[in-house]
């Protein structure tokens, strides 16, 4: 049994079918990639997993628990963290505060305790600050920890967003095109971080990426979506030799 099971998920927006009876499993501790042409439903799939969309039918199970109807914040507290395709950081807050927000579900301080900031609340802040500093260390963003996120470059913002998801200490990390718009050097860095996250923290990673070189190198399993349908599932070698996938990406041979 996988850590995440998608069973027969269908997502409709009016007449448009964004996901069409998609089923697959993600194994614990693997890097799992979702690929497909633009508009294939990859981001919709992630939105279903993180709870921003509710599938019209079908179900999603996390560690055997049916989470189909859970709200996004509930799923975050179960350990599903996410970085967005278009950066969704809190632009006026510093890098530190953004990462501290990543630890929101792991903290307990309530309104009154926070307002008076006595003993326990302060100790908790400091304890979690230490955890956040580990993430900062890991992603090598020490020098910008006090900078407001809105003023950072695109590549750094992407890294901070990954860091915010990591600060949650997730069981599953959803990365939506973490390398989009990066140059090859930044891509290489990001790929290394993903491998490090996977190896050091044993985090299960679900990755959407268009760079096939990266996807084939990193992934344990790949699922291919096309027009909302799952057209391929398997290891990178299997996907590379799957005629349906080749057709979706390159078009039919006699079409030219």
């Amino acid at each position: 049994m996988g850590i995440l099971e998608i069973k027969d998920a269908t997502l409709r927006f009016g007449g448009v079918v964004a996901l069409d009876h998609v089923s697959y499993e993600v194994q614990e501790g693997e890097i799992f990639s979702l690929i497909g042409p633009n508009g294939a439903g990859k981001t919709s799939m992630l939105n279903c997993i993180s709870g921003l969309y509710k599938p019209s039918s079908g179900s999603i199970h996390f560690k055997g628990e049916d989470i189909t109807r859970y709200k996004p914040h509930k799923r975050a507290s179960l350990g599903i963290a996410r970085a967005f395709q278009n950066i969704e950081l809190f632009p006026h807050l510093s890098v530190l505060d953004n990462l501290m927000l990543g630890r929101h579900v792991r903290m307990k301080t309530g309104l009154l305790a926070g307002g008076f900031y006595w003993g326990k609340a302060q100790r908790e802040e400091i304890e979690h600050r230490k955890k956040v500093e580990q993430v900062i260390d890991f992603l090598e963003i020490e020098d910008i920890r006090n900078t407001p996120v809105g003023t950072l470059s695109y590549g750094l913002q992407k890294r901070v967003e990954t860091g915010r998801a990591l600060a949650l200490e997730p069981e599953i990390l959803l990365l939506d095109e973490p390398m989009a718009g990066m140059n090859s050097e930044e891509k290489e860095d990001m790929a290394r971080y993903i491998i490090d996250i996977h190896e050091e923290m044993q985090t299960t990673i679900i990755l959407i990426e268009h760079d096939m070189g990266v996807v084939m190198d990193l992934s344990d399993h790949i699922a291919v979506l096309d027009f909302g349908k799952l057209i391929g599932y398997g290891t990178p070698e299997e996907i590379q030799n799957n005629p349906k996938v080749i057709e979706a990406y390159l078009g039919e041979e006699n079409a030219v």
Partner: protein
Amino acid sequence: MRNPFVMDCGEFHVNYKQDMAIWKISRVRMRVFILLAIFAVFPMFVSDYIIGLATLCGIAAIGAIGLNILTGFTGQISIGVGAFLGVGGYTSAILTAKVGLSFWIAMPTAGIVTAIVGGLFGLPSLRLKGLYLAIATLAAQVIILFVISRWDALTGGTAGMVLSRPELGSFVFYSERSYYYLMFVVLIITAIFTLNLFRSRVGRAFIAVRDRDVAAEVMGIDLFKYKVLAFIVSSFFVGIAGALLGHYTMVVSPELYSITVSIEYLAIILVGGLGSVFGSIYGAVFITLLPVVLRSGVEMLSGVFPDLSAVLIGMKEVVFGLVIILFLIYEPQGLAKIWKNIKDYFKLWPFSY
């Protein structure tokens, strides 16, 4: 051990507690204490009139901090502040005059009652954003004022109610000076509570809701809970300000809590600085003193131009509106940002490059 022959080249924090303090540098901490000391002793040297103005500024600042928690920090516009002030004032009036409770119980209760009412009117905030929410809070303003002016048996209707000054043992806070100190203590507690709030978990969640609600939700923040919570905390402080104001002016009546008051409070946090505790205080002082300064300016000139006051009598609103427009255009982040710019300039002065 510090070497007395070596000059410090900066202040370094060696643990997280130091790095996470509100005022991190000892020089700044010193400055805050000196400022507090100045405000603590200045009533000894000025007239009752000026102390009274300071008290009004301080009470407005407490309410403005409350509104800023909601509008500046959490991004939920509210134009029902006037009515919430009224809820605070009337609750305290009813509890002290009709039930016979002491002010020291009535004031916190007024805060709690206002918090509940505010939370109730905050319920639509999950579905409504921006202007739509503003209209919903406008409904709060209208409904609350309607209830206050029609529920004669409880509130005395349009005639209002008379309040007494608080007592502590045999001491009555009757003089301007004593009431100033009462306000001063409440203001300090409010400011410190709010500063602490926004460096801990719940406050950060508020800011996250303002900046990117989708991301906040995915990071595990329950939008509904935190939006309503923001309404509750905010209304609590507005209620406290309402109670303080009621016992200061010793009268509450519906026309004191009209929509003009709501707009004035919005102006305070706009001019002072959205999302800034100190900005709320600067803004409260600015907006409270603006008409006073204008009036005395006109009075001074009326010796030279006797007809001036007749012409300028209607100018108060014009200047008021002009100031707000100028702030929106030239410094949308308000007085707090202007003050920060000045500090930043002198940090490197005279070698800015």
